[in-house]
């Protein structure tokens, strides 16, 4: 199974069109392996992106360098997935 240990989901708040465009540039950087859960659309519309652990620092530095606000929506994706699996297993066992 694919491992999502250390992956975070960031909720990015682009305040203006220029910031939206900056975030859109991230989409083209394939080496970062970003997974946009909600893509860049317009200012004020939240952008959610799953960031693999090795890319977290680069993405956060990029956002901070351009003054783009963000918060961590999911601290560790794998932790949530483990909980999900445990819950499913528990119901099956029952």
């Amino acid at each position, binding site marked *: 199974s694919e491992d999502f240990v250390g992956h975070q989901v960031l909720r990015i708040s682009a305040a203006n069109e220029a910031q939206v465009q900056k975030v859109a540039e991230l989409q083209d950087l394939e080496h970062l392996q970003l997974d946009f859960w909600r893509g860049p659309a317009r200012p004020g*519309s939240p952008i959610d992106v799953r960031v693999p652990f090795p890319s977290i620092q680069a993405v956060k530095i990029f956002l901070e360098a351009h003054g783009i606000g963000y918060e961590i929506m999911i601290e560790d994706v794998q932790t949530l997935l483990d909980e*999900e699996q445990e819950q499913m297993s528990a119901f099956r066992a029952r």
Partner: protein
Amino acid sequence: ATSTDTFNYATYHTLEEIYDFIDQLVAEHPQLVSKIQIGNTYEGRPIYVLKFSTGGNNRPAIWIDTGIHSREWVTQASGVWFAKKITEDYGQDPTVTSILDNLDVFLEIVTNPDGFAFTHSQNRMWRKTRSRTSGSFCIGVDPNRNWDAGFGKAGASSNPCSDTYHGKTANSEVEVKSIVDFVKNHGNIKAFISIHSYSQLLLYPYGYTSEPAPDQKELHQVAKSAVTALASLYGTKYQYGSIIDTIYQASGSTVDWTYNQGIKYSFTFELRDTGRYGFLLPASQIIPTAQETWLALLTIMEHTQTHPY
């Protein structure tokens, strides 16, 4: 589960468990529910649609699908709950009874079975189909960019490695083509509702163009009524509007195609969560999500029944 009464609707299930549930529901309600196989997936799995019908010949119909994006697990789980709800409410609830006495309902619970199986076995975050693209090592097509409505325009990717890859041609995905053939052959589908997660939206065409749909005014009113009904249960707030105005440009999407086929009441939902769990909505929220969504579905279905065209 030994019956659909003991089935656990408050947990996520595998494809096999959902297919067993479908068989069980059909066995319990043979006069109301039947199972139709509309095709096979790229990897050979059967694609099933539940038909709820009280008789008649090719009655006007309502289509509901869940799970075209495989990782949106709350949608398949809600689809299971909807199926059970229909069988419970027919003959009990006057609205559901009236709808089913006049229209058929088709429900495709797992619209992307290969992708769904893959989310359970290998990659929980998988969204696309599992078809191979010649000349690329990347797998899968976004089945919500593969319809013949503005196909390949802005709002979809031509990169096979992208999560929004539109595929080589419209309907290249058998999961999409199976629905296209079914809808065309049926010829009397009056409402088409495609259910996704997340971000709490109820959307209508168009996504590929900023031109307003000819029926925009009516669709907007129906959407407003539907989200009002939805919010009446738990206060969940939805935005509504056209796809392009409310989220972003998306070409080749399901309901743009159905609308262009003449299915006026074409809607797409984005279910619960505004930024806490995203696609990883805890199972404890399955039933509340399904319950509130059901109220919106009923509003659209009832409007379809009372506004024949």
